[in-house]
């Protein structure tokens, strides 16, 4: 562990330890579903995320923050969130690349391609579907939906059959090579139940990601939903995603 990592961990650890210590007496003797604070009432929330496609600059910080926060393997085959770059060409052709799999960001901007008429970035993550096909297929109920609408995996129960990975239409799941269990975005459940924002939202420099509670009356996400034209990915599959995209191009799948 280098100095930087130590500091990063320490910044997280000390406040977290203090919070836990404060909550410990209240939680004693109670079952702890997913280690939520004792006064947290999951039934009062219904979490979602808004993505303003026009605001994403493709800096990839959300991906790095996610990997660090959630201990996602560094290798470019495992992502809880990633960024896709779309280039629409004059002739109507669309070229897509995942910029998060690059080993390093290019030092110089690539030369301008005059045939490109439009470029945009699309952050992707688990859609936390209200009607999740991954939960439906799990043979042992290791993947489940919380009352506040987040799809989680119990890594102590998951048998690693990978059926959920096959069932996810969005490629949002992978098998964690360390735990040998299915893994995916949790909306940083450990943070949001503490009143914090998911790591990716926290670090986004342009506020392209808006985290919120669809049950909250004056919530930012509710407002985002109201003022933007919203699309979701693959609506025909009836998964009812709770990741809501504004200004999404029809080319994005």
């Amino acid at each position: 562990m280098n100095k930087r990592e130590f500091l990063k961990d320490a910044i997280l650890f000390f406040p977290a330890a203090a919070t836990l210590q404060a909550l410990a007496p209240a939680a004693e003797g109670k079952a702890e579903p997913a280690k939520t604070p004792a006064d947290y009432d999951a039934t009062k929330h219904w979490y979602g995320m808004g993505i303003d496609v026009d605001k994403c600059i493709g800096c990839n910080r959300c991906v790095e923050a996610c990997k660090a926060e959630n201990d996602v393997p560094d290798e470019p085959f495992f992502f809880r969130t990633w960024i896709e770059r779309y280039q629409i060409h004059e002739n109507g052709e669309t070229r897509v690349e995942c910029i998060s799999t690059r080993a390093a960001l290019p030092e110089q901007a690539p030369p301008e391609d005059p045939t490109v008429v439009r470029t945009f970035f699309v952050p992707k993550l688990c859609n936390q579907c209200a009607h999740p096909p991954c939960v439906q297929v799990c043979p042992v109920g290791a993947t489940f939906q919380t009352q506040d609408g987040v799809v989680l995996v119990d890594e102590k129960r998951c048998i690693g059959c990978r059926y959920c990975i096959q069932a996810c239409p969005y490629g949002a799941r992978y098998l964690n090579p360390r735990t040998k269990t299915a893994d995916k975005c949790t909306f940083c459940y450990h943070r949001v139940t503490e009143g914090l924002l998911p790591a990716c939202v926290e670090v986004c420099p342009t506020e392209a990601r808006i985290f919120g509670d669809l049950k909250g009356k004056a919530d930012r996400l509710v407002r985002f939903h109201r003022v933007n034209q919203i699309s979701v990915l693959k609506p025909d599959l009836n998964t009812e995603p709770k990741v809501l995209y504004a200004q999404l191009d029809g080319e994005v799948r």
Partner: protein
Amino acid sequence: MSGAIPDSLNEQLSHQLSQVVGFIYPNEVETQWAILIVVYPYLTGIVAGAFILASLVKVFNVVEVQPIYRLALLTALSFMLVAGMPLQLHLGHPERAYEIFFTPQPTSAMAMFGFVYLWYLLGILLIEIWFEYRHQLVLMAQQSRGLLRGIYGALSLYSKDVSPEALAFDHKASKLITIVGIPSAFLLHGYVGFIFGSVKANPWWGSVLMPIVFLMSAIVSGIAMVMFLYILLSLVRNEKLDMRCLDKIGLFLLVAIIVDFTLEALDYIHRLYQSEESIGILTQLVSSKLFLSLVVVQLLLGMLLPLLILVLVRSVRFNEELRKLLYFTTSLLILVGIFSMRWNVVIGGQLYSKSLRGLMAYKMEITGIESLLTALALLALPFIILTVLFRLLPPRWMESHAPAAAN
């Protein structure tokens, strides 16, 4: 955070990443269901097919097929005992597999399959074989000594009654079980098809025809396996084949292939005609990555050529030796073709991105758990089990021992 993933996995995934064509979601580089999941429906299909062939004798009184009745049953059992192993081995946490039985998720096709499998093995196959062999087991226990006597006694569950009434009951029971067994065999393999067919995220799998296509191909592969074994055994033992039996199996095989071919053709025509969003990438998949395994091996060598041979055998009066050779070749071609079909479904469905914008690659490992060697071992194991079962429960034993014993 340190990566620390196994080097072999890193190497495999790096290689597969370098082979990607177009755009794929980054988590799609890894092939989630690999060679072992190809082996699994292959084995299960042979079980269902062999059992259905056997049931022709009991339920539909097709007397010509009587000589292979026991062979078909023992084949079904040998493959059934191995069918669960590839699933078990492929799990990330095999030690938690029991959870499927103790805390099953009712909405999961996979969880319910566990029960279908158990029901078929314990509720149908073992009981049917027991009733079929009970008479022989009682006699074998009487005629053998020492350890063997104990084994046969235990296998017969210490029953002794070989009175005509008891034997008539055995016969009735085994017929009844077969009647229940046919829908169960349909369920067993139809269900395997449903595991794939119900995945709406994957248009290559998600088809309402998938269970029935799996079922028909299962029947084809099961019949072909019994035919293959029947001819092989006669060669090994230097015995004369019952050609009436073989011709009859050939006829059933022909009918099954025609139905299977029709269903698969319907599936493809339907897809092409509906021409949904996925058609572009699927066409690209079939014409590139799957061309050899689907068009050449599965369709031409594994289906059309056997179909042609079987039609020829029925329309031209070849002599016995030639017919035997043709049947043998046909059964082998079909067995390879159906394996290829399983490959094309399981691996094929993971060679294109769900973004419908790119194709992936699958590099099979040679050693390790999820590897070629394990797959070969699992494919060989049923034959070893079958050899043991043949020693333990000789299918023709009654012909040489029973009359004397019965008197």
